[in-house]
């Protein structure tokens, strides 16, 4: 067999065994099916993911071999959801692990198939899909994956897109602003769904250990702080030094407005913290270092921002008091 077909073959074999094991109600056949599926999943890391598109090929072998494997894994996972029998080995059940294998397959294909700068965007889109899947299917496992992926996005965004970018290529730096802005926008798109999920999990609390450890009851915090961290850090590192305070000030106001809009205390405090950081930076650094023009612009803009925030706090005093 061709090296890239082995994983697909193993996955199909695993699926057939799984169906037979379910049909005949034979646990050992299903266990063999899980082994074949695990082998198929592992195999893609040893050949399929490095099988780049050759000249003349229209579809990447990574996509046409790894995606069907993920599809098989999700199909098996879906079958296991309807299976109410006891777990396969003692208290252990392969259900969630198979769903993790499927998602890792997709995330790995995106890692190898997307250009290095845009991996975070692809992963952010996958995280959004996982949040939508959680909402639509009411399956906590996808929310766990979405949260873990958002941690990966922040890690890669900071390490690769912010600190790992080229030292010289100017379009790369501006490019990274664009890439991280799109990533943040995609992650923020998940916010409305995460608020709905919070309501759902208030009524039906999460019981799994991993779910509690990842704070799945409050995923709106993950999907707010991940983009907020990326934007704050990229401004600090890549922005023209004379514009950092101004940019943080604008970010702070936007965050406070968002906090008031969705009635989130943590968001408002983050916005206030950013404004406080700006005031501290102005007093300690900018007042002495900035050019005259930029100093005036920064002072006026930040003064305006602080006045706006004070006005908002006075206008929505009752709302703010209720949230405290």
């Amino acid at each position, binding site marked *: *067999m*061709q*090296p*890239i*077909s082995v994983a*697909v*073959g193993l*996955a*199909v074999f695993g*699926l057939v065994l799984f*169906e037979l094991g379910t049909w005949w109600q034979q646990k050992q056949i299903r266990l063999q099916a899980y082994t074949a599926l695990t082998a198929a999943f592992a195999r*893609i*890391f*040893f*050949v399929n*993911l*490095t*099988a*780049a*598109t*050759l*000249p003349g*090929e229209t*579809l990447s*072998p990574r996509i*046409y*071999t790894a*995606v*069907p*494997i993920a*599809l*098989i894994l999700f*199909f098996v996972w*879906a*079958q296991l959801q309807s299976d109410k029998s006891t777990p396969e080995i003692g208290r252990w059940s392969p259900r969630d692990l198979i769903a993790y294998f499927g998602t890792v397959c997709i995330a*790995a294909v995106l*890692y*190898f198939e997307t250009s*290095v700068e845009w991996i975070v965007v692809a992963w952010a889109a996958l995280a959004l899909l996982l949040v939508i899947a959680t909402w639509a299917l009411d399956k906590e496992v996808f929310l766990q994956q979405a949260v873990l992926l958002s941690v990966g996005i922040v890690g*890669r965004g*900071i*390490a*690769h897109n912010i*600190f*790992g970018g*080229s*030292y*010289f*290529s100017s379009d790369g730096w501006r490019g990274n602003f664009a890439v991280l802005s799109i990533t943040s926008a995609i992650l923020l798109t998940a916010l409305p769904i995460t608020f709905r999920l919070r309501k759902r999990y208030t009524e039906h609390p999460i019981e799994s250990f991993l779910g509690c450890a990842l704070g799945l009851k409050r995923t709106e915090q993950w999907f707010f702080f991940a983009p907020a961290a990326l934007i704050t850090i990229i401004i600090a590192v890549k922005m023209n030094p004379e514009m950092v305070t101004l940019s943080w000030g604008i970010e702070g106001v936007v965050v406070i407005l968002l906090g008031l809009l969705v009635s989130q205390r943590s968001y408002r405090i983050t916005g206030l913290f950013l404004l406080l950081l700006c005031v501290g930076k102005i007093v300690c650094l900018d007042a002495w270092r900035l050019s005259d023009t930029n100093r005036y612009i920064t002072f006026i803009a930040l003064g305006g921002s602080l006045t706006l925030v004070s006005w908002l706090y006075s206008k929505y005093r009752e709302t703010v008091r209720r949230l405290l």
Partner: protein
Amino acid sequence: MKHATGLVVVLLVAGGAFYLAQHSKRHDAVNANAVVDMAADWQRDVTRAPMQFTRISDEQETQIGDELARKYVSAQPAQTPETRATEQYVKEVGGRVAVHAKRKLNYRFHLIGDANLLNAFALPGGHVFIGQGLLDQMTSEDELAFVLGHELEHIDHYHAVERVQIEAKLKSLDLDIVTAIAEIPMSSWQAGYSKDQEFEADREGLRIAAAAGYSPQGAVTMTERLGKLQREYVIHAETPTGELSQVAIDGLIGYFRSHPLPSERLAQVNAVIAQDHLQNRPLTHFHIEYEVTSGER
């Protein structure tokens, strides 16, 4: 019914994928490169931030590079008139390309007269080495310009000096003591860089070679030739046991040699040519001239 339909759809998709994979005319090697690439890229990303805050000066980098180069050159056998002339030619081509580097260092180019050395590498501070074996594979000056540009960009973009910083940290060497840094084995420089850094060197190397007046087709033909060489030399295991041994061996070597696949490099080269609208010029053939004198007067 729903289950049966789902099963049929999944089997059809998987069957189609299997058919496509089986009928593709590919020669993929089984190895741990995917895992190794990811590990190397993450390692590079994680170390990049501290590198920026602890960067050594260009003067210190040049001192370290000079010491490493001196040590390496002195270990090489004496040059023949032919190698000397070829080295002079490499220096001329490299000099034309180096003018377009962003960091204005004293770039120097060396030829290693070993016909089995199919490699080129760069040392921090501006020294670029190329093996006779690799030179023998080339058919045009433009290919040489691309290879030298690629190595030069490893220096220009701080890849080489970052390796010094990492090695010094790992071996607890003092960056201020040049002789201590010169103890770093030469294999560290010959090993190549992370996939991301190799792509960057390819991209920028092609750009500076083109800016020096060389045809971008040199990069295309050179990358194609590297791909052909890889296909010829990579061993394809015939059995599962063979695959396992290959994975183990390639994994160990691959950690240090995480070069991207030639097909991916070729795709990037073509993308840069199209994106930058690089002018297509005819390839320039090699022209090395030298005289051998008997020494009698």
